[in-house]
């Protein structure tokens, strides 16, 4: 008869045990904001489909301080999503070579963040040219 009695430690609260895990959970939580914004876009589209009165009510809602505050929080979360997205992106790519030299993960992240900055500028520029 064996005297062994292996002990399994519980996983409760695992993500609170290390700042690395906390950052991971924050990254994952940004999905809630992406979902929320999708619903915001959907709500707008539904109001648009229902007609002008409905759409104007929606616009009025968007102008409330609560909505502005919510969008500010969503903006922060979206920016963190973008940052953490490009931070992890190198892990999904195979070993890359450019001009005979190996591309570092940090380079890929930097390129991604620059692309996001450019996309932001382009979107703002397009909106600006389309202003009434």
């Amino acid at each position: 008869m064996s005297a062994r009695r292996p002990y399994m430690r519980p996983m409760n609260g695992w993500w609170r045990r290390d700042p690395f895990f906390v950052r991971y959970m924050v990254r994952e939580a940004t999905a809630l904001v992406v979902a929320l914004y999708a619903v915001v876009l959907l709500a707008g589209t539904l109001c648009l489909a229902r007609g002008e009165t409905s759409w104007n009510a929606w616009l009025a809602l968007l102008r409330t301080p609560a909505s502005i505050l919510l969008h500010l929080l969503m903006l922060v979360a979206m920016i963190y999503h973008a940052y953490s997205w490009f931070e992890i992106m190198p892990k999904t790519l195979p070993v890359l070579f450019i001009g005979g030299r190996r591309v570092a993960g940090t380079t890929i992240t930097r390129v991604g963040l620059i692309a996001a900055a450019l996309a932001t500028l382009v979107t703002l520029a397009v909106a600006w040219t389309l202003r009434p």
Partner: protein
Amino acid sequence: MKRSGQPVFWVLFGAGGMLAALFGPALVFITGIAVPLGVLLPQGFMNYSRMLSFAQHWAGKAFLLGAITLFIWHAAHRIFHSLHDLGIHTGVVARTLCYGGAGVVTLLAVWSLSAVGL
């Protein structure tokens, strides 16, 4: 070894995540802060006739459908996995809520974009 069906959701997750990473901040800023406050862009930027023409145009439809569906499917996949991370066991209920919820949002988006007409 059973083949996992995850690739479908993962590809949607990846596309939605990339779209959100590149365009999310600008879109949130424009639609939720700039235009409502009339900062950088006038409030009339999103008035009914402009928005209706936008949603009626094939490009506008594609943009709205793309943004709504890719964002929601990205979120559904991540939230589903996060529930598992939090110890909420991923049974049929969690799967239905997450992916089913995304399905509902998709259907509503398709409906409303066809309801605005051409």
